[in-house]
């Protein structure tokens, strides 16, 4: 592990390259501030870049996020460290944060790689593609996804058999197995925490059978099936490739559930499920879609109309709590549920079940700050200490929070929150000049 000797100075360190990190970084960079965005993943874009469409407008998510991603990458005031993680931040004084960042090796020279994917063609290894939520395979050397930024290959060294085929075929001489983990030390005048959220792992609810029954999938897996760069040729059941014609959604999987330790609403699962149901009816016109819900929370602008539109299209909404899911011999699933309106227990058969998973706090910011305490709320999100007047303000002066790092929220709210974070950061930087 090598230590980079020359410290680099920035006005703002943004932790996370999702929609909130990009938005706040761009606002500040366009005001002349030097911004460093640190992204743990191989590409910036966060979760939004993997979505099909956004609700309630049904605009293409990639069409909104890709220009922003490119703008970040091209902006002369923004430096992006992808495949990197902030290890520790030490506040030395007013306007002085020392940060230590771990930059993991890609084993590919970023400036040399042309993204031609010749290396992928010759790589003999196929493992689960995490960017397609394990529905299909990827090679050990791979471009994460087609609209990744940087669009540069990376080698998954844990799954590499060190055959050297990629290095042999690379006409750009971009493969470099001598790369090592680097520690990059930087100084910033302020910090924006935009570390986003985690999705609930539905294997924690065993009675839903996720991971055991091949045709029980998560909403993110369905989301990938609905994008143009989908893992399959159509919406299909992962277990046997059958085109489903009777799909069930189980809302509030891992949210509003004390038993799994996440009692709060995810804010998005009602509407993203309603969106997916509409998209499925477009992709599979003969399919029936049933949404099992506790309450429909259509609280945003145009949400109620969006919900009514789904009903008008034929999506069936059943107020019911799912008790358990069982797999039948033909791969179909039998759902046992309480029909809340009628007060009786019923059973229904579907050929694909989508678990609308909830949102959990990202634990990353918890122990990031040395000698300072970043207060979290009782659900482990970064605490907004002055929510009404200064919504981005945290317990550490000079540290601001943007997007879902402060709580579950949808894309427009994340962008608004990032706007607040950038204006409060700019104000802080101007004040302390």
């Amino acid at each position, binding site marked *: 592990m090598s230590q980079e000797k020359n410290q680099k100075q920035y006005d703002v360190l943004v932790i996370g390259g999702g929609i909130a990190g990009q938005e706040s970084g761009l606002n500040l960079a366009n005001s002349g501030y030097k911004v460093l965005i640190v992204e743990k993943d191989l590409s910036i874009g966060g979760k939004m870049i993997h979505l099909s469409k956004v609700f309630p407008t049904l605009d293409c998510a990639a069409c909104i996020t890709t220009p922003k991603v490119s703008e970040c990458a091209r902006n002369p005031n923004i430096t992006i460290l992808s495949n990197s993680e902030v290890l520790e931040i030490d506040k030395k004084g007013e306007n002085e944060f020392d940060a230590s960042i771990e930059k993991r090796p890609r*084993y590919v020279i970023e400036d040399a790689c042309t993204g031609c994917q010749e290396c992928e063609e010759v790589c003999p290894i*196929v493992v689960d593609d995490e960017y397609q939520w394990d529905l299909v*395979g990827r090679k050990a050397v791979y471009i994460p996804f087609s609209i990744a930024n940087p669009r540069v290959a990376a080698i998954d060294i844990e799954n590499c058999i060190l055959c050297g085929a990629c290095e042999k075929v690379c006409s750009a001489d971009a493969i470099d197995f001598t790369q090592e983990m680097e520690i990059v030390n930087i100084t910033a005048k302020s910090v924006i925490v935009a570390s986003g959220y985690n999705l609930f792992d539905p294997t924690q609810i065993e009675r839903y059978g996720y991971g055991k029954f*091949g045709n029980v999938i998560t909403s993110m897996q369905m989301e990938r099936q609905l994008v143009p760069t989908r893992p399959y040729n159509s919406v*299909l059941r992962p277990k046997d490739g*059958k085109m489903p014609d009777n799909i069930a959604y189980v809302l509030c999987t891992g949210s509003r559930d004390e038993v799994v330790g996440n009692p709060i609403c995810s804010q998005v699962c009602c509407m993203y499920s309603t969106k997916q149901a509409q998209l499925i009816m477009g992709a599979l016109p003969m399919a029936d879609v049933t949404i099992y819900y506790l309450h429909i929370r259509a609280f945003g602008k145009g949400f109620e109309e969006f919900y009514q539109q789904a009903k008008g299209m034929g999506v069936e909404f059943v107020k019911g709590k799912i008790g358990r899911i069982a797999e039948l011999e033909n791969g179909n699933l039998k759902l046992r549920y309480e029909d809340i309106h009628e007060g009786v227990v019923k059973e229904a058969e579907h050929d694909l079940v989508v678990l609308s998973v909830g949102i959990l706090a990202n634990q990353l910011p918890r122990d990031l700050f040395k000698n300072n305490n970043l207060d979290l709320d009782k659900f482990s999100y970064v605490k907004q200490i002055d929510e009404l007047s200064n919504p981005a303000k945290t317990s550490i002066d000079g540290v601001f929070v943007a997007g879902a790092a402060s709580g579950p929220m949808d894309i427009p709210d994340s962008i608004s929150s990032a706007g607040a974070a950038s204006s409060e950061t700019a104000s802080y930087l101007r004040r302390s000049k």
Partner: protein
Amino acid sequence: MTAEKRKTINVIKEKRTVNPEVQEKRKEYVKLKKLILKALESGEKTIPQIAEEINIPIGDVTFTLMSLRKYGDVETGEIDDMDEYYFYNLKKK
């Protein structure tokens, strides 16, 4: 420069060994890939037809077939008469 770059695989080979599980998974994948491609040599088939012919769990066939499709070895054909399963063909290269 080029001659020097081509040797970097040897540098990492001195530091790392390959996990036997990875080798094992590679063997399984190659075996399954060969079986699926061979099954498709006689003409287009659906996933259940392939799984039955090669006697491999259908979930494994779906995953491998879709990976082969992703990397251009297999292409999608028409859907069957029941509108349930697509046919898949070998892609002519």
